[in-house]
């Protein structure tokens, strides 16, 4: 048999295969490590957002209300329970100029300027009061002991801090009643206004660079600058916003100033992603439109932009996700520590979710760590939704040219 004499050309070299396997594993390892760390982080945050608590219903003349009711609704129910008629209650809550409704820690106040002087109606003990707080592990371990030691009117509950009321309540000096409602609305306001600024400017710049200037000198200069801008730390934008918008333009520490700062921050990212989307549109489509007698403007807006739209939208969403997480620049342009009211206009005071989380973490009461954990979960949830949306859009409109 001469088989033994010929080199085994198609055989497997065991060492090459082994090295290949090791190499592939070595590449996967860091990924697994990163995923593991992320899972650990998420798990830890989840764990911290639960606690075992002793709560007591307030024994005053009032009554406790289900979580999540608005101040007006609580006042209405309370007044009705005290025997006022529907008309009287409606009248008392009607005129927003004359009266003021406050939602404080665990009480609701109605202030009303009548002809006989100011009138003040207070509902106290709106919610159950939280008496003591234990971590999940400790609380579950000592469950029976705690249960045996309950006072009159007290209950032992497993409390998820991230509940429905957490999402709607205003912030508070007490961790027991602190909520993220105002910060969520602040984020919604700031982000929408920021995108309102960043989308037209960013996409417009991308179209100008990609479709009109192409290989010009100006295009190259702008390109380098944009890439640099995308790499500037966000706190530098905060300084710019503070100097330019808050001070020089006199807008003050308001939603508008924050949106303009975040808008600037978002523009480079949007420009870069939108340019890539435009570049992915094949040249043959532009030629086809030109050959049909379209002007440059018609080519761009009837063919190229519609074809690039899914990519552009994905880019906008990703940049929005980045802007949601920004705390540093907003600390500089005046996200306030304590804003008890929902923002009502672009010139309102505001706070946003990451700033609120930062402020909670820097408090020294240990329960604030739980509030912060709940806040982090809210933000992660929000970010996940945005990323899923981006992913969905990318898959939904994927094209083969």
């Amino acid at each position: 048999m001469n088989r033994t004499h010929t080199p085994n050309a198609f055989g497997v070299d065991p060492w090459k295969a082994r090295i290949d396997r090791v190499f592939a594993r070595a590449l996967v390892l860091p990924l697994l490590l990163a995923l593991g760390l992320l899972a650990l982080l998420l798990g830890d945050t989840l764990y911290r957002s639960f606690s075992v608590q002793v709560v007591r219903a307030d024994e005053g003349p009032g009554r406790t209300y289900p979580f999540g009711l608005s101040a007006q609704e609580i006042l209405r129910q309370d007044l009705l329970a005290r025997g006022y008629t529907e008309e009287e209650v409606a009248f008392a809550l009607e005129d927003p100029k004359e009266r003021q409704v406050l939602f404080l820690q665990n009480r609701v106040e109605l202030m009303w300027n009548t002809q006989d002087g100011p009138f003040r109606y207070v509902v106290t003990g709106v919610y159950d009061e939280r008496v003591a707080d234990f971590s999940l592990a400790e609380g579950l371990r000592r469950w029976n002991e705690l249960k045996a030691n309950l006072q009159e009117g007290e209950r032992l509950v497993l409390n998820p801090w991230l509940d429905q009321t957490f999402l709607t309540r205003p912030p508070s000096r007490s961790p027991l009643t602190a909520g993220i409602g105002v910060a969520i609305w602040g984020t919604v306001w700031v982000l929408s206004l920021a995108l309102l600024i960043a989308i037209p400017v960013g996409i417009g710049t991308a179209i100008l660079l990609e479709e009109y200037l192409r290989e010009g000198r100006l295009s190259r200069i702008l390109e380098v600058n944009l890439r640099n801008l995308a790499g500037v730390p966000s706190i530098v934008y905060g300084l710019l916003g503070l100097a330019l918008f808050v001070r020089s333009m006199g807008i003050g520490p308001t939603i508008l100033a924050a949106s303009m700062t975040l808008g600037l921050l978002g523009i480079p990212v949007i420009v870069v992603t939108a340019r890539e989307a435009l570049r992915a549109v094949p040249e043959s489509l532009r030629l086809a439109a030109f050959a049909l007698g379209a002007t440059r403007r018609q080519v761009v807006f009837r063919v190229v932009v519609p074809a690039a739209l899914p990519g552009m939208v994905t880019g906008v969403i990703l940049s929005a996700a980045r802007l949601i997480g920004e705390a540093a620049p907003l600390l500089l342009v005046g996200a306030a520590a304590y804003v008890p009211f929902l923002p009502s206009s672009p010139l309102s005071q505001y706070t946003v979710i990451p700033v609120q989380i930062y402020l909670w973490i820097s408090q020294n009461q240990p329960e604030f760590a739980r509030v912060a954990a709940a806040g982090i979960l809210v933000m992660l949830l929000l970010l996940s939704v945005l990323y899923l949306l981006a992913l969905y859009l990318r898959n939904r409109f994927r094209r083969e040219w």
Partner: protein
Amino acid sequence: MSLEMLKDHETVRTESVSETEALVDVRHLNLWYGPKQALFNISVRFPKNKVTAIIGPSGCGKSTLLRSLNRMNDLVPGVRVEGEVRYEGVNIYDPRVDPVAVRRHIGMVFQKPNPFPKTIFENVAFGLRLMGVKGSELEDRVVEALKRAALWNEVQDRFKKESGLRLSGGQQQRLCIARAIAVEPPLLLMDEPTSALDPIATQAIEDLILELKERYTVVIVTHNMQQAARVSDRTLFMHLGVLVEEGPTDLLFTKPKHPYTEAYITGRFG
């Protein structure tokens, strides 16, 4: 066969086209891409309602000549044109002529099918919409164009919903032809329209070209000499940016006069 030898070449013409028969009359056309000259002193007439094929080896300037007939070369940065292209007596390189308006009158089909990522209907309607056609007229003319491009039977039940990109390669190319002829251009330019297609789809397109010449004047660039022989009435042979020979297709292929033409069609170079 050097450029120097061809530079002052006088085109060999057989049965040349008279001025009255011609739809397009190219006179002494020179074209440069930056410092590089791509077309050398080209003079040729394209007869009305006939198919004219342009053949020649790669890089000989066939596509450049085709694109200078509807000023698509204007889109290339650094291009410079001298000479005249008279379309129904009007020089389209006159500074008072708007290239966009020129392209509206002249249809073009490209090498690779390039439908827009829109529905079949919107693809065909694109040029019509640019001309301001609306409503039921728009719909009628789209259907008419699809019929004329021999695509209607295959897409009639889905042409308003389905994306043009979902069609097969041959169907996409017929869609592009429908898109080009929807605006009723007297002149249709085709730049190697079948080079990306399989033989069956090529056959369909060639049949279509033969039908189209009843209504349109067609200029087709092709790599494939058999195709030129099958579909065209007249053929132009180009080499190194020079129009070497032109004449009726059957004569050019059977009795070429210039030695280069003979060498090319017998397969000795190219």
